[in-house]
Every structure is written in structure tokens, then in C-alpha cells.
């Protein structure tokens, strides 16, 4: 049986303990029909031209983990931002782990999607926000919607600054031979509020895992959302991340995506505006080796005047790794005085590494500043000579240069402990040994 058929025929089992008359379930059922009709995207779809899901979907996965896996804190502590006090919403094989989590309802809600979807006190929020910006047409998002049940739910009320960053971590224990996960997150940040979020997906054993995740983020007036995606998974794990962000006037939403590992990663990041003077920031560092494949597909939809968007993605590819960057900027006629910048710079360290970079600008307004730049290059030989002439061996010099190349994306990371961690990860991945104390 094809995996698509399995997803559809397993739906009855998924529905067993759900309220089928609930409006949320109507939404799910409708989404399943979209997936059934469209199926998985193929390379014939323009936006999937350089990324094939064939290898992933021609396999079988468990949809509902059988046993409850237990993980000890000591085994996973290293994946937490342990030197910082954080809220934590932790899942193991898609199931909430109260033991590893640290949720709250004190002045803000950091809890579970399953609670938000079923408890009456969240009904208004769910009716207002659930599946309102996630695509109704895109088949993978629809697939996630149809199976949406669990994930993180965050609600930050007006004039509230979340004092601690929120970590959302999905572990795959490896108890199942292979696993298909579909977490669904909803994040609502009301007027004049702020929150920092760190999301990661981590396998603990080399077993095939595919995660098809959807996150909706609502950023109200004057609010600031600072979101970090840490993708440094095992080479047995793949991730399709679909993140939809809606911003109201004077808000700032920033997403940093650090893609340092995994088998196949696809990041669909979509921004929508509902007012003026909005700032949207999209940054990424991708460092791959082996046969890893990362595809960044971004879209900023400028539909109001006087807004800004900044995209800056750096990629470093060695061995046979593959990178894709498809950055779309859409500026509607009404969106005058838009400032939209996009930068995608790549370094290929080996002959067999590839990058496909495609800026896609559609501009219908005439008084705008839009720019894009894309470079694909090898190492700057002159700079390399400079370092080597100081006695630094070629390999180390290359690593230092690569580190420097990726570094400026790190400059805008607001959380010092996170910055230090990522800095260290990038340095160790590149084989650079710097003391960061200075």
C-alpha cells in the first residue's frame, strides 16, 4: 500500500477518540479531502522543482506510536538551552512529556494544542486563529491540518513580555522503527507583547523519522516575536516545516533558521501583513555535508504601504550536499514605500555540492525599494592566502573563513546563551577552534 493510501485509510483510527461534530474536526475533514485530491507534491510542481519527496514517501511509517517511550533528562539535557531558565513544551514521538516540560498559565499560556483544541476556555481563540493563515490549498499543510491534534499552544495577552524564552522540542525516541510526525503549533501574541521561541526536532536514534510540522504565528500591533529554528538532526531524520506568520501594524516578526543537519529539510516560511509599518526579518544559516538536502522556500506578501522585509540566507555546502533557496517577494500595487531586501549567499566547498537559488520578485507598486542579491562562489583565494601567510594551515584557514562567512547572520541573535551555543555548533561543525571568551 502506498503511504498516501495509508494516511487516508488510517484516518478512521485517528478519529476514534475525537468529537466528530466539532467545528475543528470539520476543518480537519475538509483538509483531508484536499490532501486526498492533491497528494504529495512532486517535482512537477514549480515550488518543488529541486526537492523530491519520493525517497521519503516510498517508505512506510508508523502514524501512531505504539508504546510510550521513556527518555531520561540526562539523555536529552544537551538539547535544551540548559543555562537559561525557559518554558518548555516537550514531546516524545508526538506525545506530550509532562516530565520534561515546564508549562505555564500564569499571566500567559504556554501549554498544549490538544488542550486548546478541546477546552471551552480556549474556544474563542481557536475559532479566531486555528487554521486561519495556514494554507488551505497546499497539500502538506492540509495533511498536517487533517491530523492536527497535538503540539504547542502559546498565548501571550496584551502588554505582556514573556520573561523566559519558550522551547518547543519534539524528540523522536527511535522506539518505533520508522515514524511520521505531524505536530501543530499555534502562537498568538497580542498587542504590545513580546516572546522568544526556540523550536527544534531531534531524533535520539538513527531510525527514519519524517516530521511534517505546521506552525501558525499571529503577531498583533506593536508586538515582537523572535523565533529561532534549530535544525541539527540526525541524517535519518527529515523535516517539512510549514510556518505561517501574520503581522499587524507596527509589529516585528523575526525568524532565524539554522539548518546544520538532517536528511532532507524543507522550510516553507510565509509572511502576511495586515497593517502598515511592519518589519519582517528572515535569516538563515545552512551548513551541510554528506548527501544532506535543505530547501528554503520563503514568501513575504507586502499588501500594505510602508512595510519592510529583510531576508538574509547564507549557505555552506560540502561533499554532495544540496541547497535550494527560493525567495519570493510579492508587493501589491497598494503597498507603496515598501522596502524589501533579499540576500542569498552560498559557498560551495566541493565540486559535487550544488545550490539552486531562485529569487522571485513580483512588484506591482511603483514607489518601492526592492533588491535582491544572490551569489554562489568558492572560497576567496586571496583571503585564504592571507590567513595561511600567518601560519594558519589551509584546512583551518578555510574553516575560519567559512565561519566568518556565516557569522553575520548570528549577529542578530538576541539571546546571548543561544548565540553562544550556535556559534559553538557552527565552529565545531566547521572544525574551527576559537575561544569565545574574548
Amino acid at each position: 500500500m502506498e503511504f498516501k493510501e495509508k494516511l487516508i485509510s488510517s484516518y478512521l483510527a485517528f478519529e476514534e477518540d475525537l468529537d466528530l461534530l466539532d467545528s475543528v474536526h470539520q476543518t480537519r475533514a475538509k483538509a483531508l479531502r484536499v490532501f486526498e485530491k492533491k497528494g504529495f507534491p512532486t517535482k512537477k510542481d514549480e515550488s518543488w522543482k529541486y526537492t523530491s519527496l519520493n525517497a521519503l514517501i516510498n517508505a512506510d511509517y508508523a502514524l501512531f506510536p505504539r508504546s510510550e517511550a521513556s527518555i531520561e533528562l540526562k539523555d536529552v539535557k544537551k538539547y535544551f538551552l540548559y543555562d537559561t531558565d525557559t518554558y518548555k513544551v516537550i514531546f516524545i514521538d508526538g506525545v506530550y512529556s509532562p516530565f520534561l516540560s515546564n508549562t505555564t498559565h500564569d499571566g500567559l499560556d504556554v501549554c498544549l494544542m490538544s488542550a486548546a483544541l478541546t477546552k471551552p476556555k480556549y474556544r474563542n481563540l481557536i475559532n479566531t486563529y486555528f487554521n486561519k493563515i495556514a494554507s488551505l490549498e497546499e497539500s502538506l499543510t492540509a495533511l498536517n491540518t487533517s491530523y492536527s491534534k497535538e503540539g504547542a499552544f502559546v498565548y501571550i495577552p496584551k502588554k505582556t513580555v514573556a520573561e523566559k524564552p519558550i522551547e518547543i522540542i519534539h524528540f523522536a525516541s527511535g522506539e518505533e522503527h520508522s515514524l511520521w510526525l505531524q505536530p501543530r503549533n499555534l502562537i498568538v501574541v497580542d498587542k504590545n507583547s513580546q516572546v522568544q521561541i526556540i523550536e527544534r526536532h531531534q531524533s535520539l536514534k538513527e531510525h527514519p523519522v519524517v516530521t511534517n510540522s505546521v506552525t501558525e504565528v499571529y503577531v498583533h500591533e506593536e508586538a515582537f516575536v523572535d523565533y529561532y529554528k534549530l535544525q541539527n538532526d540526525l541524517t535519518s531524520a527529515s523535516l517539512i516545516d510549514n510556518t505561517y506568520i501574520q503581522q499587524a501594524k507596527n509589529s516585528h516578526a523575526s525568524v532565524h533558521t539554522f539548518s546544520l543537519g538532517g536528511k532532507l529539510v524543507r522550510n516553507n516560511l510565509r509572511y502576511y501583513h495586515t497593517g502598515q509599518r511592519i518589519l519582517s526579518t528572515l535569516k538563515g544559516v545552512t551548513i551541510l555535508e554528506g548527501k544532506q538536502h535543505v530547501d528554503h522556500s520563503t514568501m513575504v506578501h507586502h499588501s500594505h504601504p510602508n512595510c519592510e522585509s529583510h531576508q538574509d540566507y547564507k549557505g555552506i555546502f560540502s561533499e554532495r550536499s544540496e541547497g535550494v533557496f527560493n525567495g519570493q517577494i510579492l508587493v501589491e500595487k497598494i503597498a507603496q514605500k515598501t522596502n524589501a531586501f533579499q540576500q542569498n549567499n552560498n559557498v560551495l566547498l566541493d565540486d559535487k555540492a550544488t545550490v539552486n537559488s531562485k529569487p522571485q520578485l513580483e512588484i506591482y507598486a511603483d514607489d518601492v525599494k526592492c533588491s535582491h542579491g544572490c551569489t554562489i562562489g568558492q572560497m576567496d583565494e586571496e583571503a585564504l592566502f592571507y590567513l595561511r601567510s600567518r601560519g594558519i594551515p589551509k584546512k583551518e584557514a578555510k574553516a575560519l573563513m567559512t565561519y566568518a562567512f556565516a557569522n553575520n547572520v548570528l549577529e542578530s541573535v538576541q539571546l546571548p546563551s543561544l548565540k553562544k551555543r550556535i556559534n559553538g555548533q557552527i565552529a565545531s561543525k566547521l572544525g574551527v577552534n576559537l575561544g569565545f571568551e574574548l
Partner: protein
Amino acid sequence: MLTIENLHAEVEGRTILNGIDLNVKAGEVHAIMGPNGSGKSTLSSVIAGNEDYDVTQGKILLKGKDLSGLDPEERAHLGIFLSFQYPVEIPGVTVTNFIKTAINANRKAQGLSDLGASELLKKIREKSTLLDIDSKFLSRSLNEGFSGGEKKRNEIFQMAMLEPTLAILDETDSGLDIDALKIVANGVNKFKAKENAVVVITHYQRLLEYIVPDFVHVLFGGKIVKSGTKELAHELEAKGYDWIKELA
């Protein structure tokens, strides 16, 4: 210390150096002057081991050791230092971290362990004071956003920290105002010692007022066409390079 014999070098099939002979002894300062395009920068690049250039004939010896086939880093480990005309910017790597990496790479090549933090800081403090370098400057990214003068001062600071046996200063005076020039020259003069040597490459005589050479060589068409003492530099300043071209 440095012996160059009949050195020929080319880049992309174009001959730049056309039979250079040069002999620099320990404790000496040599100046190499010449008009633009005479091969001055190529000579410094070739000595430092830049792989863009092919040595087609002749050889370079440092303390009797043939440098042929040695990588730039191996030459650095033997004590060669090149102060660049256009130092490269390395964002995200501080001056201090860079120096530390370079010093420890050289120590490793000599079979020594890493320099301790306190020793390193002591040395940094001493050399940066000498070159009038602010401590804030040391925590900035290497050469990023540095003014021309800051870049050159940083080159000389690296030289002072690495303590090479042969320092080649390629157009170190370009882009420097007179105050910066004096500071840089002072740094070089403090570095000068019986057991090391300095080769100053310059278009103008100006720097040689402050770093006084023992010998001056004029390079033209990839050859040394005239050698003399510091008076030769004055003569070039007064008469320009046209009369040199006739010697070639």
C-alpha cells in the same frame, strides 16, 4: 638570511619576475623601490608562497633552506611574515582570536604547546601599547570596517606578535597619514634586531625617512636594475623613475 637567485615568476603565462638576485643578511633593512607594475608586489607574494604565481626558474633560500614547493603556512612557520598592502576582512573573528589562532598554529608547527592566556594577554598589552592600539580595537572583527591606517597598524601589530625572522612590508605606507606613518615606523624600528631582517617595499621614499634602509634596490621590468644605499632613495625622489627605465 634571505638569498634570492635568478628568480623568474609568472602569472597566467605572463612573466612578471625576470631574474632577481637579492641577498639580505640578518640585522639589515632593505628597501625595494620601483614604479607601478615593476613586480614589487609579485616579489613579496612569491616569497610568501602565493600559489597564484609560478616560479619558472631560480630559487629562494631562507637561512640556506630552499623554499621551493613550500606552502604559505610552512614559510610562515620558518619565520616569513608579509604585511599586506590590502589586508583581508574577516567578520566574526576578533583581532585577539585571530592572533591567538596564528600564534598557536606557529607554535604547534614548532612542536610547542599553546600559549597560555595570561602570557598571550601580557604580550598583546605590550605590543598594542607600542603601536598605540586601543584595547577596544582588539575585540573588533579583524579588519572589518577598519580605516586604511588601522589596517596597516594591525598588520604591524601582527608582525610584532608573531616575531618573524624576515618581515616583508608591502606598501605599508600607502593610506597612512604622517602620524600613523610615524607610529607604524616606530613599531618596525622596535622590532628590528640583530637576528631578524626587514624588506620594505615602497613606491615612495617617504617611509624610508622613518625606517632607514641599509640598502636600496630599484626594481624595473621584473629585474633589479640598480642597487645602492639610502642615498639612492633620495635620488629617486628627486629625479623620478624615468632615468631608471633607461638602465633597463
